[in-house]
């Protein structure tokens, strides 16, 4: 008999299609009912919540929606690199959050050096370049470190996912301690450029332009990533590698080089996310872990390895994070965080591999 083991690496087009998991009916109904109930609640019934029903207070609703979308942008940047690396290499890079935080710290240092002050930097003193150059330096360092991690530790354990996950987890612990020693335990903040630090009036509510700027950067990153993956031969090779690594090798393509480039780009994206995050909410010990968790939640919702999934997961997660504190009854606002897990449970009940995920 032909050994069955060989078929494990043979996702032919037909099986890949049929393996797409069909949504189960009951969870779909539950999810649809939940979505309708939430929409009705938010639109008409949400009395006694911080925001109030959308029909009575449309301004609050629009601002909450903007919060959702802009936070989703940050989530997407942080998660896209994570999902790119997982999709191609099946490596769950637990050090993703560390690269995020390291880039943030380094960008803050570079910005301080460029502005010439180390504390209480006035946004008016920050030119766009004083923000952009630190971003590129921070993300560049994260990318370089990611590449070193991949070359030194991961490449020898290709295909051993658990070992790779544990190694990157260990690297996270080491990096966290080293960053604590170097950058201290106090929260630090990257300062947005003065050009974007003002407020808009949105239906009677003040809205920070920095959040829209953050969304703009995220959209730019998404578009560039999409162009790279769809229009360049390297991008096509990466997508082909996500489908069937061994077949890509049999076409004479040096998959090791592709892995290295992907890890570099994925780590760079973690760094860009870190700098955006440090400008948005600051950087402190523990930011690494919470952003690893954020990235994980996004890709679990969206489906590991799918860029579309990362975008959809970011939007859903961003919506839950923005809407639940605003539209839960005031005395229950404290429980907003639980809604994240409700979302996770609901999505996984409908599509166990995430919205755009395929079984590995």
């Amino acid at each position, binding site marked *: *008999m*032909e*050994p069955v*083991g*060989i078929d494990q690496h*043979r*996702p*032919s*087009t*037909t*099986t*890949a*299609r049929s393996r797409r998991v069909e949504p189960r009916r009951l969870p779909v109904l539950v999810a649809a009912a939940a979505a309708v109930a939430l929409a009705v609640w938010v639109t008409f019934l949400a009395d006694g919540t911080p925001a109030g029903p959308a029909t009575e207070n449309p301004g609050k609703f629009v601002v909450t929606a903007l919060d959702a979308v802009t936070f989703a942008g940050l989530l997407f940047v942080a998660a896209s690199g994570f999902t790119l690396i997982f999709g191609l290499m099946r490596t769950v890079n637990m050090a993703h959050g560390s690269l995020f935080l390291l880039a943030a710290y380094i960008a803050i240092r570079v910005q301080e050096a460029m502005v010439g002050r180390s504390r209480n930097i006035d946004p008016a003193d920050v030119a766009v370049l004083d923000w952009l150059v630190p971003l590129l330096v921070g993300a560049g360092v994260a990318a370089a470190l990611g590449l070193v991690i991949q070359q030194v530790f991961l490449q020898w354990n290709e295909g051993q996912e658990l070992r790779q996950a544990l190694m990157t987890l260990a690297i996270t612990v080491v990096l966290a301690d080293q960053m604590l020693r170097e950058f201290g335990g106090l929260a630090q903040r990257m300062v947005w450029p003065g050009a974007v630090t003002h407020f808009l009036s949105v239906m009677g509510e003040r809205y920070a332009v920095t959040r829209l700027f953050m969304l703009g950067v995220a959209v730019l990153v998404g578009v560039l990533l999409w162009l790279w993956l769809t229009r360049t*031969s390297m991008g*096509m*090779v990466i*997508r*082909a590698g*996500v*489908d*069937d690594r*061994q*077949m890509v*090798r*049999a*076409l*004479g*393509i*040096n*998959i090791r080089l592709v892995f290295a480039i992907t890890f570099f780009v994925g780590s760079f994206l973690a760094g860009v996310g870190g700098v955006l995050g440090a400008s948005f909410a600051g950087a402190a010990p523990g930011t690494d872990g919470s952003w690893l968790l954020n990235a994980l939640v996004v890709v679990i919702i969206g489906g590991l390895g799918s860029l579309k999934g990362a975008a959809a997961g970011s939007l859903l997660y961003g919506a839950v994070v923005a809407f639940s504190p605003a539209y839960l009854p005031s005395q229950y606002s404290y429980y907003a965080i639980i809604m994240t897990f409700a979302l996770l449970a609901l999505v996984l009940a409908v599509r166990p591999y995430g919205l755009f995920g395929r079984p590995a």
Partner: protein
Amino acid sequence: MTDDQALLEVRDLRAGYGVSRVLDGVSFRVAHEAVAIVGRNGMGKSTLCDTLVGLLRASGGEVVLRGERIDGLAPERVANSGIAYVPQGRRLFPSLTVDEHLAMLARRTRGKRWTPDAVYELFPRLAERKKHGGADLSGGEQQMLAVGRALLLNAHVIVMDEPSEGLAPTIVDVLVDAVHHLVDQGVAVLVVEQNLRAAVRMAHRQLVMVSGRLEAEFAGDELLARPDLQHRYLGVGGHELEGEYR
């Protein structure tokens, strides 16, 4: 066939999975010709293909391509030294369109015989479906794409594993013509087939594989005309010829 003409030479090749040995000393030569390897399911044909292209590591023996040993090389180096692979089940990339399957390899084909345009010329049906995803194609179109993709390597030898599997007879005709065309162009083709009739039409020489060894060699229609030999080597009687081995 003389020695200096042998493009691919396999000597005493052994391979398996863990402790189970599947290839048990396989030897043969391929010159500028099409050679078929036929045999029943589970006799080691696909294992032979995977070992030749480097996806499976040989545990013994040699694979020599144009005088250079290629056994033990990583699959990408085997491919770049001149063996292209059309695997069983096509193994197209569901995420890519027809055009992207070819475009991802286009850069290395510049100035060579086989470019994406040349593939579209060989299989005009593919040109009509450039923007379609690999999964939207019919079985025949998928096989054309798998062959076209392999051609872009501009290899000396193309290894095809069960190319006629699941294809309508008219599509098999297209495939047979393509194989003859490739041989005319100086490419050697090693085709592994369960479908004896397709194998005979593609390749003048047919080697019979039984339990990880090559047990016999036939030329032309000889095996097709001998139900007794088919029964002995392939485990089919004459009456089944009209069925599975059509």
